[in-house]
């Protein structure tokens, strides 16, 4: 039993803990699952040239990003023995301490969930056209760039 239907990845603003709880709760009916691995990206108070980040404002080339997310899903189901996979990413403003990425991978045995979750997060960081302005307390900003 594999669930591979498409859903909207982008969420406006931060991803709330309640949303995450709800996602976990929905999986209690899938009683063949033995392991979930969840990755959460949280916006960090980085200090850049003496100024502290307060917010990231995310934007995206959405049509391409959605295709990429779909490819990542397809590839993950082909590469790993997964039961479920959900990816959510914020657009717009997300404050420090708030969640901007939620990758939720479920499998019968733990190995597949661990392997897949990590692989998916790296794919998203490197290959999905999402852009971010790191905005400081004084509303000036720099453009964020992911590193390996």
């Amino acid at each position: 039993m594999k669930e591979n239907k498409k859903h909207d990845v982008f969420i406006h603003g931060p991803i709330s803990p309640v949303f995450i709880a709800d996602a976990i709760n929905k999986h209690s009916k899938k009683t063949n699952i033995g392991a979930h691995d969840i990755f959460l990206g949280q916006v960090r108070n980085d200090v850049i040239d003496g100024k502290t980040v307060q917010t990231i404002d995310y934007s995206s080339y959405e049509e391409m990003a959605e295709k990429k997310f779909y490819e990542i899903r397809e590839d993950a189901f082909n590469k790993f023995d997964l039961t479920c996979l959900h990816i959510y990413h914020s657009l717009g403003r997300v404050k420090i301490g708030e969640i901007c990425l939620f990758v939720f991978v479920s499998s019968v045995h733990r190995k597949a969930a661990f392997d897949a979750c990590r692989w998916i997060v790296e794919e998203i960081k490197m290959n999905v056209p999402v852009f971010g302005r790191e905005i400081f307390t004084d509303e000036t900003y720099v453009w964020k760039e992911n590193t390996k």
Partner: protein
Amino acid sequence: MKIQLKFFGQLAEITGKEIVEVDGIEDTDSLVKRMLNEFPKLKSCKFQIAVDQKLLKQNQQLKSVSEVAFLPPFAGG
């Protein structure tokens, strides 16, 4: 044939617009050359090109292409 160019993030700040239409350009190499000429500040930026939403690996003809995007470094997650 007209092609729609899309600029994102800091690249759109440099061009001053998110969408630019061009015509009569043969391939992606010529397109990049023309854009660097038109917006010299792009020379100091890292960017990738996506042709019809696929990342470009090497020079490509623009016949029957409808959209070319200029993408700054990714920052998702």
